[in-house]
């Protein structure tokens, strides 16, 4: 993955820049030692690494503003970082950048059940937002798989989703307001405990902008009352096509499950060997979860199993107890771990129209043979968000490149059938160079204009989202300036 050549002038001024930062912040908040910087050289896309110039860990919005003012004045790029769990390289530094980590900003600022929101600092982890309100039977809906570790800041940057967004939406649908600091160090409040914007929906464009428009330090999030209960059913089929048709029929019948998860045979086999969840050996497996009171759950699951039976399932297993429910989810939740146990893998994130599911799975199978790399599919079927896992051997020369080429072909296929490159992980550096397959030059130009307005010097999270050639003129104009 090509990254821009670091600015030699910035590198040569490292000690001066570090001194300015140290003078403005508590000593422990500035990391510049070579060995310590290694901890920040990559995120969860570990194939790419580059230690930054320095790392700052501010503990308040005011400190974030101070850092940004200094970096802005020095013309130093800034890479915002939540918990570093990005699978797309969203927090990958450049050698001439300062990492601005929000991990110390982890407090709950306000919980308001009457108005159903929580205000938190952005470094707080996703799961601990729910943790702050679950004793009162409330929760925060978006639930990315990395929720134990990932920060709200990163969730906002990538507009993260999760398994339950078919019913509850993604981050942007659950975000009410932010405190954001611009690259120039200006603190602004956008949105709040009320709904909708007075003018343009700036909050809507900030969410999902991959940390390129500003640094979010606080967030007002919508919280919801927990449903009375939830229960999954597991349905096995002897073909992907039939499973796909069943998903479509369930949705058409008017049921809105909170989750419809799909696993194909390679994934079932791997997770069964790893987690021993007792899954049936079949071509495709659905886990459908519904919520409500026990009677409501019975009614919905009754309808779902009735639809499933019309498609001749090879297995139909309704959870009769909490323990059985856990076992049904066990395999799905350990799918990534199971893959990691077999080999290195790359996790893709394209979305497709649900109707194209069988065709896309068939094509991925064919490509897998052509490339000689195994692939397992596990994904959120209700919304068409696929997560093909391509297995490769990082120690084998050329295998990573082969895997990347295969991944790019799958993503191009997603776009070809009317879908997109990324459903919830973000573009980062990983899909940056594929953006031209989904967008025409005018489309990308329109997006870059937004960046021009929020960050005219193009210093925030450089070299992400837009292909380097497309953003070059803007980046270099300002680095020179």
């Amino acid at each position, binding site marked *: 993955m090509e990254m821009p050549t670091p600015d030699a002038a910035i590198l040569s001024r490292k000690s001066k820049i570090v001194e300015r930062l140290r003078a403005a912040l508590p000593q422990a908040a500035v990391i510049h030692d070579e060995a310590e910087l290694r901890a920040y050289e990559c995120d969860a896309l570990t194939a790419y690494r580059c230690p930054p110039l320095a790392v700052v860990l501010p503990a308040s919005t005011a400190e974030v503003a101070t850092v940004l003012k200094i970096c802005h004045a020095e013309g130093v790029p800034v890479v915002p970082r939540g918990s570093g769990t990005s699978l797309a390289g969203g927090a990958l530094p450049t050698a001439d950048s300062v990492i601005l980590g929000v991990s110390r900003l982890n407090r709950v600022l306000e919980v308001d059940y*009457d*108005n*159903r929101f929580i205000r938190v600092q952005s470094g707080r982890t996703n799961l601990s937002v729910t943790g702050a309100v679950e004793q009162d*039977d*409330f929760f925060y809906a978006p639930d990315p798989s990395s929720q134990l570790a990932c920060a709200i800041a990163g969730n906002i940057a990538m*507009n993260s*989703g999760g398994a339950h967004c078919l019913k509850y*939406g*993604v981050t*942007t649908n659950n975000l009410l307001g932010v405190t954001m600091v*611009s690259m120039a160090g*200006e603190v602004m*409040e*956008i949105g*709040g*405990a*009320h*709904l*909708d914007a*007075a*003018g*343009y*929906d*700036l909050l*809507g*464009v900030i*969410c999902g902008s991959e940390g390129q428009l500003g640094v979010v330090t606080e967030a007002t999030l919508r919280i919801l*009352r927990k449903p*009375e209960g939830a229960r999954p059913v597991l349905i096995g089929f002897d073909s992907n096509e039939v499973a796909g048709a069943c*998903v*479509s*029929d369930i949705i*058409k*019948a*008017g049921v*809105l499950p909170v989750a419809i998860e799909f696993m194909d045979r390679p994934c079932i086999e791997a997770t069964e060997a790893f987690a021993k969840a007792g899954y049936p050996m079949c071509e495709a497996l659905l886990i459908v979860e519904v919520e409500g*009171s026990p*009677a*409501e759950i019975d*009614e919905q699951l009754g309808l779902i199993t009735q639809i499933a039976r019309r498609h001749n399932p090879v297995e139909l297993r309704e959870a009769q107890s909490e323990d059985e429910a856990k076992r049904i989810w066990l395999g799905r939740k350990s799918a990534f771990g199971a893959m990691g146990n077999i080999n290195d893998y790359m996790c893709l994130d394209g979305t497709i129209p*649900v*109707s194209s599911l069988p065709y896309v799975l068939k094509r991925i199978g064919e490509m897998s043979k052509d490339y000689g790399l195994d692939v397992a599919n596990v994904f959120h079927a209700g*919304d*068409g*968000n696929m997560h093909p896992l391509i297995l490769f051997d990082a120690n084998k020369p050329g295998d990573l490149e082969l895997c990347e080429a295969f991944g790019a072909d799958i993503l191009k296929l997603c776009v070809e059938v*009317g*879908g997109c490159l*990324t459903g*919830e992980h*973000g573009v980062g550096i990983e899909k940056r160079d594929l*953006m031209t397959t989904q967008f025409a030059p005018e*489309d990308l130009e*329109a*997006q870059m*204009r*937004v*960046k*021009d*307005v929020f960050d005219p010097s193009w210093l925030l999270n450089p070299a992400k*989202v837009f292909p380097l050639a497309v953003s070059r003129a803007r980046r270099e104009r300002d680095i020179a300036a």
Partner: protein
Amino acid sequence: MLSPATESELSEIVAGARGALHVTGGGTRPVGRPVAGEVLSVAGLAGIELYEPGALTIVARAGTSLAEVEAALAAERQRLPFEPMDHRALLGTKGEPTVGGVVAANVSGPRRIQAGAARDSLIGVRFVDGSGSIIKNGGRVMKNVTGYDLVKLMAGSWGTLGVLTEVAFKVLPAPEAAAGFSIAGLSDLQAVEAMAVALGSPFEVTGAAHLPGAGRTLLRIEGFAASVAYRAGRLAEVMAPFGAVTVERDAAAVAETWRQIRDVQVFATQPGDVWRISVKPSDAPGVAALTGGEVMFDWGGGLIWALVPEGTDLRARLGAFAGHATLVRASEETRARIAPFHPEPAPLAALSAGLRAKFDPRGILNPGLMGS
């Protein structure tokens, strides 16, 4: 009037425009500062392009009538989740509301508290910017984080950043049944408390309104028949401490009640200016009292509709508060004098002005509509 029939014609018109354009869809929502300029109607760009009930997605050209989209969805027992308000009765307009207009104004209704606004269901747009470039963003799939979310930016931009040519929505199943609840005689404060209890319950309330004039506080739940019956019983128990709860189970009656709330029917026949105020629900009674006019509360209190004498500068009465007030109905003279859209704090106003300058550098699309 300019009435292009295709996106490329529209693009040529905008590119070749010599002066201001007053962009319009069905013309049923004359909100904002009056716009001087040649009328550019998008109504000719009509038709549903794609509807996949099994994928919960629909794509339509911007000039497609809302009625056509709603009828297509109803035939498959689906609907737009956000319950868009029909402004015709309140604003005394005629014509057919279009889906492009719904998006441009980010219209929603009582269900906004549970299912989001138009912007939350909008998954893709195509538009022509102020230079005539055709731009697409988002798409036809409901999970998409590829690039910046200009879809949200276009929703509620009232045609000032670009002329919408196509919109795509995530849709939801229409419920089999509905139940309405009514509690009489609550004060504004009690009503907001009662609605907070209802919305904080696990029974999925999809409407919570308070009509002080009629002395009624209303709630709604929707879903499968057996589920609605169960939740109706439970919700009535939870609400009992606030007073006698009347439950309406006739679906047509529930629909009519909430249509009237959605369309602010109560102010449609009364003279005066109408304002729409978005606040934190628990702030609503205090803010409502400051209006000095007749009010109606939706969204559990989060939305206040206020009727005040013509020409009233309501913002001056409200002073500083957390939220925003939009002047929805007033004479052209009043809308020219009092900013219809709530002024933004300086840093946000600068960003908005910057976006406007980038997307419409010549300032020809609905100039002035949203303010300076």
